[in-house]
């Protein structure tokens, strides 16, 4: 289980990296944290002629302001989980990221790597969708910010062009006090999620001013539960509404099946997780305001 041969190049700058991408096209891959890419290479499921190491580029800053959290692409998961500034403006971020793999992987896995890979159950991808994020990229032709709905296309498929590199993700949590919760069910702690739901809720005078809900496991990309969000807007949360919200969220979805979970089970999980996440997010929102 040794990787196939390649030529290693360390990129000196982000510009250098994208120029190399342009130059080598499909023959090149970027190496960030390597926690997903290198296992694939060791298993020889992934091969490349040129491996462009961007791991030391200074793209690991975290800028936190109310309503806007900017995370550099090379921010390591652990760094982001432990960031008090990030937690202050977007507590759902550490809540979600705690589910990623295990501590040693979190030391080196990166936000940009996760977003570029676009595993359907990746927590960072769910956060980008939940928090109306942009994926900020760079290519030889320049930079752009791709909004989440345009970015995620399908499992492992994004809007990234072959010569384009993620340099940051911009997340937009609610600017004021809000409550959040991220729940996940996986076979063991840290395994790929069978289903996950994240909720952020703003409560004013006992009524929900704003609710955002994301689900992983409903489709091949994270999806917002728009109908459920609409139902919650302006509502007061009752037990009956909590139960109803989960059902609304999964209405019409044919979740996928694999050796871990059937479609029915996933759907049932999402129903439960959405209801619970919303309830807990509301509790937290209320206790903050």
């Amino acid at each position, binding site marked *: *289980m*040794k*990787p*196939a*041969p*390649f*030529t*290693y190049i*360390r990129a000196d700058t982000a510009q250098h990296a994208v120029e190399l991408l342009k130059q080598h096209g499909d023959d090149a891959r970027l*190496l960030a944290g*390597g*926690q997903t890419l*290198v*296992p694939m*290479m*060791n*298993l020889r499921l992934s091969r490349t002629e040129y*491996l462009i*190491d961007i*791991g030391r580029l200074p793209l690991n800053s975290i800028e936190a302001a109310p309503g806007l959290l900017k995370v550099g692409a090379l921010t390591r998961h652990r760094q982001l989980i432990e960031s008090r500034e990030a937690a202050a403006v977007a507590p759902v971020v550490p809540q979600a990221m705690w589910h990623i*793999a*295990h*501590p*040693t*992987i979190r*030391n*080196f896995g990166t936000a940009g790597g996760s977003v570029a890979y676009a595993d359907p159950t990746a927590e960072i991808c769910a956060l980008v969708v939940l928090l109306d994020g942009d994926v900020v990229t760079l290519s030889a032709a320049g930079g752009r910010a791709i909004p989440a709905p345009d970015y995620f296309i399908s499992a492992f498929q994004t809007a990234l062009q072959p010569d384009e590199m993620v340099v940051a993700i911009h997340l937009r949590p609610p600017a004021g006090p809000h409550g959040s919760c991220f729940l996940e069910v996986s076979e063991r*702690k*840290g395994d790929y999620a069978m289903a996950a739901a994240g909720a952020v809720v703003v409560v004013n005078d006992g009524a929900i001013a704003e609710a955002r809900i994301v689900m992983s496991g409903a489709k091949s990309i994270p999806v917002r539960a728009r109908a459920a969000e609409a139902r919650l807007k302006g509502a007061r949360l009752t037990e009956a509404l909590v139960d109803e919200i989960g059902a609304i969220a999964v209405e019409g979805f044919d979740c996928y099946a694999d050796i871990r979970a059937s479609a029915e089970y996933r759907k049932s999980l999402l129903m439960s997780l959405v209801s619970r996440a919303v309830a807990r997010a509301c509790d937290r929102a209320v206790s903050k305001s």
Partner: protein
Amino acid sequence: MTAVMLTVNGRTQTVEVEDRRLLADVLRNDFGCYGVHFGCSHGACGCCTVHYDGVPRLSCLAFAAQCDGATITTIEGIGTDGARHALQQAFIDQHGLQCGFCTPGFIMALLPFVERAKEPTEDQIREAMSGNICRCTGYHGIVDAVRAAIRAHAQNGGAS
């Protein structure tokens, strides 16, 4: 081929390696650190854990070529025959190992936790070792070892 300068357990050496050569293989074969073990080669078992610039890292998921200039500590750099680290001693005292194959990986992964945690809960201790698989001990002795090491660490005023 790439020239890579590594400081491993205090010794600095430059080696010329094939670009794809895994850090774990270089540590084992070029630096003689056979305590770094391959358990799965895909990052799921923790047997190959080393410290990379002070931080636990899976050495099967890094290419030596990307590690130029790094400071690496392996199990061979922890404690000495005469003076083991409190965690190593705790593994012995609490029967935290049986076949010994996963042991270096557990120790390297847990060292920062042992040195920083203050009165962790059982769940927190188990979470700290969630990336390491042991088939022999059932984890019970390892959890005991972590607790014992944290106690010893606290008693020594934070030094191990």
